[in-house]
């Protein structure tokens, strides 16, 4: 392992906070069955709307379900939504950005006009509309979030590709008759990866926030998956009598997004530091 990464990491507390939060979330998502004290969907009618207590650390909801267990299982849904929507947006956005920047001309024009059109839509409005059209399901929500995330990647990568295409090593690759696919995959793609990684981390945070907003509006991940946004939505109705129902999932969404934002920030600093 490059020791410089550790040296630079020491300068940024955001690296420790970001990675600690992200690793804890991943652990919760992977080992949810072992970490949660109760079944997240089993109802206990004798323990309805119980405030936080030694048995139920974060209390129970209106069906007597354990909030802590539901939050742990909810991490699985939120992380999967964040990761897959980022992955699909990354693959399609980077692909389109590379093609637009490399070929230019009318191909660039068509791709960029579609990208601009998608960017003109408020992202939440676009995600809600797509989900409304496709129907509410786990993968449709991911697809909607991927479509809204894709233009950010394509705009970013297209700009960087245009700049890379003017460099000497690209000219020499062309002079050596390197194929177009080789230039794109071997010479351009590795040089845009820094930007891609930073944007990927921020995209996960954004997808988690947007999915939470969609679920809150009743158009996110449908039941029975325990999603943080849906927990917040149902808790909102009981705010006067059981505020912990809305507080706990909100705090967890906040911590998760903070973790990915810190990690993205650190990667950005690290890349800038290495470039110096």
């Amino acid at each position, binding site marked *: 392992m490059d020791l410089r990464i550790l040296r630079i990491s020491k300068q940024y507390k955001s690296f420790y906070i970001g990675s600690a939060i992200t690793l804890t979330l991943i652990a919760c998502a992977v080992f949810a069955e072992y970490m949660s004290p109760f079944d997240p969907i089993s109802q206990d009618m004798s323990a309805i709307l119980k405030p936080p207590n030694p048995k139920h650390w974060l209390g129970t909801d209106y069906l007597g379900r354990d909030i802590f267990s539901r939050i742990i299982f909810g991490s699985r849904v939120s992380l999967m939504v964040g990761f897959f929507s980022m992955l699909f947006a990354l693959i399609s956005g980077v692909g389109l950005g590379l093609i637009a920047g490399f070929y230019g001309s009318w191909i660039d024009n068509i791709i960029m*006009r*579609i990208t*601009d*059109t998608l*960017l*003109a*839509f*408020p*992202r*939440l*409005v*676009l995600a*809600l*509309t*797509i*989900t*409304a*059209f*496709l129907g509410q399901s786990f993968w449709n929500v991911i697809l909607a979030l991927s479509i809204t995330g894709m233009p950010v990647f394509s705009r970013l990568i297209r700009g960087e590709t245009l700049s890379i295409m003017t460099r000497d090593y690209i000219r020499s690759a062309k002079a050596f008759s390197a194929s177009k696919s080789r230039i794109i995959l071997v010479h351009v793609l590795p040089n845009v990866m820094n930007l891609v990684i930073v944007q990927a981390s921020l995209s996960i*945070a954004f997808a988690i*926030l947007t999915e*939470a*907003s969609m679920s*809150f*509006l*009743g*158009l996110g991940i449908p039941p029975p998956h325990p999603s943080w*946004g849906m927990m*917040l939505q149902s808790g*909102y109705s009981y*705010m*006067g009598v059981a*505020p912990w129902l*809305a*507080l706990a999932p*909100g705090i967890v*969404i*906040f*911590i998760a*997004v*903070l973790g990915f*934002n*810190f990690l993205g920030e650190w990667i950005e600093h690290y890349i800038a530091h290495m470039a110096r």
Partner: protein
Amino acid sequence: MFPHIVRRLIYLVLVLFIMSAIVFFLMNIVTGDPVVIMLGQSATQETITKLREQLGLNRPVIVQYLDWISHVIRGDLGDSYTLPMTVSEVILQRFPVTIELTLLSMIFSLIIAIPLGIFAAIKFNSKTDITLMGFSAACISMPNFWIGILLILLFSLKLNLLPASGYVPFLTSPLKNLRLMILPVVTLSIWYIAVYMRFTRSTFIETLRSDYILVARAKGMQERRVLWVHAFKNTLIPLVTVVGVNISGLFGGAVVTETVFSLPGLGRLLVDAILGKDLPLIEGIVLFITTAVILCNLVVDILYVTIDPKIRYD
């Protein structure tokens, strides 16, 4: 300047055309038969065929699109399935609420963020700077509807200071209107305060390091004059860009904020339209919001030239 505005208007028409095509084809191809959605699964085949002919849905999709777009150009967005009004009427009725919310939020966030950002930049690397940056990192990571819930819990349910929901038009009762808008505006603004504050801080730090500031200080100019006359003006220009980019997000944020505070705006109307499968209404709202966003961006473009005469578009 004038040729640039003309070019931007042509571009706006092109984007609107692509956008209308995306929305129309999504509605007509991906969702399936709108007549079945309107009548429900229990409708007889005869009724479905009759309504389809009545609405002109038996024609080829491209003919339907051209017919629809010719109506849209004339301001006719069709009839709502769920409300006894045309889509244009409903939108015009609800739009003032959304524009008031977004405008007040934009102004409020800038009023708070710019002084805080400059203060953090002046106190660079101090405890004040670190605290302000920590506050902004926290605000950026919070879902705005959750902030709304927390504000309702504190100011409405615990302290009983401000109303949790409701809306009175500004012209009917300005004071009551502003009182009802305090919590929604703060909710929608928090994220933007954090973003603008960070941006102002970093731009201000960069400006303070530039040569002309060094020269101004070397000439013995008063520090207050250096900060407010020279550095401040140059920080505003890039900030206008960021504000322009975030207009689209403000409209998105309004959807959730209006739902939390039961404001009868376009955002809440969109959610209701989606839940009620009112396709013409969804289509109309999306077209309207996106057109508003693009027009706002055009205004921002024109503002650049006013703020910085060095910028020439032609």
